[in-house]
């Protein structure tokens, strides 16, 4: 008590050293986490799909399979259910290479057409148009749904291709999608991209996806 000592709390060098330590260590942790995460979110292989081994991001050939989205009791959220039944896109099973090329075209088109500045993908993007994360599973496109009837097509993928090529011809809402000059090939790529995206394990986002669709069909509260 004899002499008043300067406090560490007002010492610049204490804060500088602490800042350097915390910043450095947080950065190292982030890099470590990144290595771990990237190894988990690499696309799986076709063999893994065939054997039913779960990957967060399945191989492009997932577009050959039937995809669902079901509540998982243990995890407390919805997870994608892949196969084992096949449901090839456009009725034709693709080789790993063909599937990869189609997905590549789809992803390129998604970027070149700037989808993300109206829609959200995995919840990121703009909020002017519906989220596309699970668009492949949206009841709007299902058998007996309004989009197949409107486009006069008999399958989800054909209806999607038709809509993507001429969105201005199908007035779905006052807020219509513009015609972006998407070719048939590009549209097929986009459909492959959307189907692949719906198979990604998003930890249950979006939650309760289209759970009330039965209400529309049965004339429930919001039935049109």
């Amino acid at each position: 008590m004899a002499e008043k000592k300067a406090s560490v709390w007002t010492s610049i060098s204490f804060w500088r050293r602490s800042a350097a330590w915390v910043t450095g260590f947080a950065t190292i942790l982030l890099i470590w986490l990144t290595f771990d995460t990237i190894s988990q979110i690499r696309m799986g292989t076709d063999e893994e799909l065939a054997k039913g081994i779960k990957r967060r991001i399945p191989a492009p050939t997932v577009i050959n399979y039937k995809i669902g989205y079901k509540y998982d009791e243990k995890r407390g959220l919805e997870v994608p259910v892949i196969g084992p039944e096949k449901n090839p896109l456009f009725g034709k099973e693709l080789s790993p290479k063909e599937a990869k090329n189609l997905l590549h075209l789809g992803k390129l088109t998604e970027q070149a057409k700037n989808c993300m500045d109206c829609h959200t993908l995995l919840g990121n993007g703009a909020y002017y148009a519906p989220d596309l994360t699970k668009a492949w599973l949206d009841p709007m496109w299902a058998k007996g749904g309004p989009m197949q009837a409107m486009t006069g097509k008999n399958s989800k993928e054909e209806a999607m291709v038709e809509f993507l090529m001429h969105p201005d011809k199908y007035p779905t809402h006052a807020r219509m999608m513009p015609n972006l000059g998407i070719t048939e090939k590009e549209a097929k790529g986009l459909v492959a991209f959307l189907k692949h995206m719906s198979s990604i394990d998003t930890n249950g986002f979006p939650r309760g996806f289209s759970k009330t669709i039965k209400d529309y069909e049965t004339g429930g509260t919001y039935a049109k």
Partner: protein
Amino acid sequence: MLSSIKNSAAVSPSKQLAMMYFRVAIVLFGAQLLMGLIAGLQFLYPSFLYEIFDFSVARMVHINALVVWMLYAMIGSTYLMLPDETGIDKPVAIGLGKLAFWVLTAAVAVVVLVFIFIQVGPGKESSIWFINEGREYLEAPRWADIGIVVVVLIFYANVFFTYMKGKKTGIMTVMVANLMALAGLYLAGMFFTDNISIDQYWWWWVIHLWVEATWEVFVGTLAAYALIKVIDAKREIVEMWLWIEVLMLFGSGILGLGHHYFWIGTPEYWWEIGALFSALEPVPLVAMFVHVLYDWGKEQGHADAHGKGSAIKNGPTMAWITINAFGNFLGAGIWGFFHTLPQVNIYTHGSQFTAAHGHLAFFGAYATILIGMMYLGIQQVYGIERMKTTFKGKMAIFLITFGVLGMTVALTIAGYEQVLVERAELGAGWQAFFTAQNLPWYIQAQTWREIMGVVTFVGFIYLVLDLLTIGKVAQESKE
């Protein structure tokens, strides 16, 4: 602001270059607001400019003008403080720095023209290289990415070698280290992958580690420098605060990145990391807030004790810094915390909630202090001893702040409605989305957002008029 270069032979070349950057920044700010008004109107009247200038185009230019005007103002602010902090009037390669300015401005002009007139390309690599990369905020095509990297390297080299040659203050040390991280991070967003999860993983490295880490530290350094200039705050105190802010901002912000990795295909362990680290992100913002008000009070106390009147040498700068302290805490801190926990975020992710947070955070944390730095620049190049806030300046402060707050509240209400109806009640499908968008409460909120957008724009006009005239007026009244 326009004539500031002609009549200022005595002003350091670094500060002249700063003013050049500020001028482009304010033009781009105006472009940002105009695009926002168009996009907002399209929510209410979807047929407005349909297939001529679609929402996606307006929105793309809206957010890119935002990022670019802020980068311009940040580069400008750095050149502004460089001579004062290093004691060197002329950066080592000022000629190259000026060339870089013109190259960057030409590149930005070309990118914007391509965005506006070409808009989208075919699904080929060439579109990514020359038209549009299609990744929110990072839409700039690849050629521009590379150009930006080169220009930023020139800027960084200029700052770095000037720093090495001159005085090494704490403020400048933080600035130089932080700028390196800021510039380097851009590289993480420059490649193409078919894997949307990996795509968004690295995309967030750029976006998050910019706006929630390096940009925030940048704001801390600007506030430190400005407080010394505007109210004569003591350097030791300001620098101590700066290190505390670096500690807390990077400590929470770097791993706070996890809150973007909840739903993009990444493992579940990010829930915890993202939740708790990002929940701490508001803490440094409280600290910055306390620090600004504390120093202001302290210096005013000193001035009063010596009968010196106001301690503030630059009224508008101090006002904008104070709004920054509030706005950063409110917009980035509170509005961010609203939806940062995964338990909430699973419903709010990708809704108007995000838009509400984005508007107040970008304004509160960045726009405010950068406008403050523009006023500081004007004061310095005109050689004004004490600069008072004019009527136009006050109108700008009031209308812009009120307008952005109004937009934020409106978007928050829209987001609340969207989250409960579209997400919780109906489950996020196509029908659910449009059912929520059609509800009267949602449309009312979007209407208010547009009205408040107009208020903000009127405030912006006052701001431009004030920036153009305040220097001259103050100089004339001195003579």
